[in-house]
């Protein structure tokens, strides 16, 4: 890179700005007006640059950044300090483990009672199933079903079945969309 003038180098100008210039530069200034002017203008440029004001974005900038921030690998927490949150987590884990332990202990100590409950529950379920099967078997003979079948006819029944199937499929798709996890793009860092 060429120096702006034959007498001074850019290093000389940098040294002048820092106040570390060689004595020979001052000796040269005594006889060279062009270099004095060059150095003076260079200093003025730097001073004006250093005086440029720090500009500010509109108020609420931090809020806009936080709103646009993706949670990424480190989710943003509230202002709860770290040590309090850790204690709460530990307490929740202890409570859960304690509950499980208590439940298992009680079950082991009351096995005969549990057995009698199991038998009674199975008998009740069997009775319900029998009743339900009997009701389904009698359904075609029910007056309501006969009337419905007569009124709808073949085409009507077909449309009704199609409508119900479509509504069912739509419901399944909607539930799938609702429970699907959102995919966040990972921004490039640097």
């Amino acid at each position, binding site marked *: 890179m060429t120096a702006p003038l034959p007498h001074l180098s850019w290093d000389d100008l940098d040294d002048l700005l820092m106040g570390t210039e060689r004595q020979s530069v001052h000796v040269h200034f005594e006889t060279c007006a062009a270099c004095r002017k060059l150095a003076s*203008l260079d200093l003025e*440029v730097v001073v004006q640059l250093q005086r440029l004001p720090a500009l500010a974005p509109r108020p609420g900038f931090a809020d806009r950044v936080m709103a646009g921030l993706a949670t990424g690998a480190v989710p943003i927490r509230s*202002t709860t300090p*770290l040590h309090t949150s850790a204690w709460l987590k530990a307490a929740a884990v202890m409570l859960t483990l304690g509950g499980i332990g208590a439940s298992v202990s009680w079950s082991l100590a009351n096995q005969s009672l549990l057995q009698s409950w199991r038998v009674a529950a199975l008998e009740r379920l069997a009775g319900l199933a029998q009743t339900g099967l009997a009701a389904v078997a009698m359904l075609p003979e029910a007056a309501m079903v006969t009337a419905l079948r007569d009124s709808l006819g073949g085409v009507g029944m077909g449309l009704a079945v199609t409508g119900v199937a479509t509504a069912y499929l739509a419901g399944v798709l909607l539930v799938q969309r609702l429970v699907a996890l959102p995919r966040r793009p990972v921004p490039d860092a*640097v």
Partner: protein
Amino acid sequence: MPTPDVRSAPDQEIVALAREGAEYAYRELIRRYERPVFSLIYRMVRDRETAEDLAQETFIKVLNAIASYRPEFKFSSWVFKIANNTAIDHLRRRELDTLSLDGSPHATTSEGVEATTLQVSGDEESPLEAVEALELGTEIEAAINQLRPEYRSCILLRHVEGRAYEEIAEMLELPLGTVKTYIHRARNELRLTLQHLRE
């Protein structure tokens, strides 16, 4: 529970808290660097709304990548590096012609060179350039606008943000000699522009 006062804490301490996900640490980092980052980007892209969007993008990138920040480097250098890259990427996408005293480097015909040659008298500025110059308010701001983006970022980081040559070289991933060259050429152009404006 009240938020801890971290205003006087060093950057590394705030970054460590931010890595744990503390929102108040995120906000403190934004508070510390929003003005210098915005200033740098604004002087690079010369449009307030765009500068705000890019500054916002910068902080989102910084905070999203806080876990990968290496503490052995200065946090401020890292932030300015991302800010500068964001501004440069925007300028490249926009393919803004930097006004030069000798016409745009992208001009291929004599008509194109003439159309992009800066008229330094001030009377022939476009209305947009005149408004920008007024808004920024000083001759030096108008002169900075004429620099090539790579010169502009180097001179702003050196003499506005007060970064050392070595730090700028590290930030911009350029050789030290190249950084010095860019800064000296930028000072040369600013000096010549100011001299011309005053004659």
